[in-house]
């Protein structure tokens, strides 16, 4: 059974802005899928429709056997704990320390007041430290997040998502604010999480060459529609041109020819 199915999903922000129209695909457990598309194509909207940060206008999203659209408030919170999310701008609480931010990954599991007051069990703290070791941040545990570099902040974001014990990881342009070195580190962590922990990953990327290097399967989105869905090696230069329009030349040139495996 598919872990995630998106069926006929459309999203209209208002009468004029149609962010998604009739999008359908399915993700199997353990897959590493990259969504590519130029900016404004609807990639971010698509990810947010999956955990209902954005409500769909029409269509059905099914996650782990649950019809996401029909969940009530409590069921939705419970479903969200199983879907980790990481962001282009990391979205950490800068005034709190690394450990406190990572522990936010447990909020969905806790009673409202224990979570609000930040009361965590020893087991949860131990788990947080384990996850921080996994992303190589054991030295920064008590550091405030605004003192970290971009790459470190994104690793805190990954650790927070991992502490949710997720089945699916949604990554919205996780490397768009990072330099090439930090980008590679982050993408390698995501790949490792996918292969070693078996967590399914759905990653939005603007950079085609990174997508070609890491993805098993690519979904191409253009103006709110899926225009390609298939294995990475079957993606042709023409399709890339179609997805990115006039931008494609720069994107492919900028990457050189050394990436595609």
């Amino acid at each position, binding site marked *: 059974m598919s872990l995630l199915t998106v069926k006929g999903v459309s999203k209209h922000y208002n009468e004029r802005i149609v962010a998604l129209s009739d999008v359908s695909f399915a993700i199997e457990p353990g897959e590493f899928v990259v969504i590519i598309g130029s900016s404004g194509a609807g990639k971010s909207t698509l990810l947010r429709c999956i955990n209902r940060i954005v409500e769909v206008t029409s269509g059905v999203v099914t996650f782990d056997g649950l019809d996401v659209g029909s969940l009530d408030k409590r069921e939705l919170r419970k479903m969200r704990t199983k879907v980790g999310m990481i962001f282009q701008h990391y*979205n950490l609480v800068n005034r709190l320390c690394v450990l406190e931010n990572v522990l936010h990954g447990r909020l969905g599991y806790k009673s409202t007041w224990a979570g609000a007051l930040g009361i965590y069990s020893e087991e949860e703290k131990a788990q947080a430290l384990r996850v921080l070791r996994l992303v190589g941040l054991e030295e920064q545990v008590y550091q405030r997040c605004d003192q970290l570099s971009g790459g470190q902040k994104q690793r805190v974001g990954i650790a927070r998502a991992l502490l949710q014990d997720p089945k699916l990881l949604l990554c919205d342009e996780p490397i768009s604010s990072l330099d090439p070195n930090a980008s590679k580190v982050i993408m390698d962590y995501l790949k490792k999480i996918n292969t070693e922990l078996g967590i399914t990953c759905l990653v939005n990327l603007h950079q085609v060459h990174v997508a070609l290097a890491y993805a098993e399967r690519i979904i191409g989105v253009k103006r709110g529609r899926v225009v390609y869905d298939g294995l990475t090696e079957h993606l042709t230069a023409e399709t890339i041109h179609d997805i990115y329009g006039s931008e494609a030349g720069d994107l492919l040139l900028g990457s050189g020819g050394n990436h595609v495996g």
Partner: protein
Amino acid sequence: MQREQSLAPLWQPKVRPRLGQHRALNKPLDKGTLFMRLTMATFLALTVLAFASFDYQGINIYNAFLGTIDNFRVLMLSPQLTHFSLVEAAEGMLITLSLALLTTVIGAILALFFGLLAAQNLSSPLVSSLIKGGVAFIRAVPTILWVLIFAIAAGLGSVAAVTGMAFHSVGYLVKAYSEAFEEVDSGVIEALRATGASWWQIVCQAVLPTAQSYLLSWTFVRFEINFVGALAMGAAAGAGGLGFDLFLASAHYFDLREVGFITYLVLAVALVLETITTQIKVRLRVQT
């Protein structure tokens, strides 16, 4: 293209100051300036007219002027307590400070709750605009009027003063707090929603930690305002404290030296509060 670019640095430094001078010299008399000048001229004419047409009832302006200067000299240069002891004055100050603290704390607690509901990123548009409209009305009515309004029910005294001042504080702080909450990055709120966190968890774990320094400084600014308010209410609404002592000294005992002493006392405390506020603001700027 290229020629324009190479010319630009040569042109800018020469032309800009000259343009500025040119404009300053030939500043056109636009409608706004004209209106301002007409208003000023009218005020001036009215002032002269008023002094000319006052009924002085045999007061010698020269002597009256000297008398005023003399009173002012006594007030400022020979402060002294006569009817109150120093302990009583300190007690009065303590009461006034307590009034300010009480009204600020009540205001802050209520404003924290309503501020959350008024923040657009944490509330529904309807609730937010209802509360914002409500507190705009509360703020538009001066504190003293609220005290008088509450005095209808509670009688003139400390209860009306505290209620009225706290009420106005709520109006002021809800606006300040909700704006601080709205500054919180929407991405952070989104990230916590995505973990399955509930509204209160997001508020306590993301919104309050991010906004806390702003909340603290706004609260302190309001405390300063309420200190002045408590002083005035002590006299005007009979709420007690140093304001009432001041009222007695001036309107009852006609003791200028005592008024002077109390004025200096208030000035000292106001200076201390001002220093603390400045310190808080400096620390805030360092932190954020």
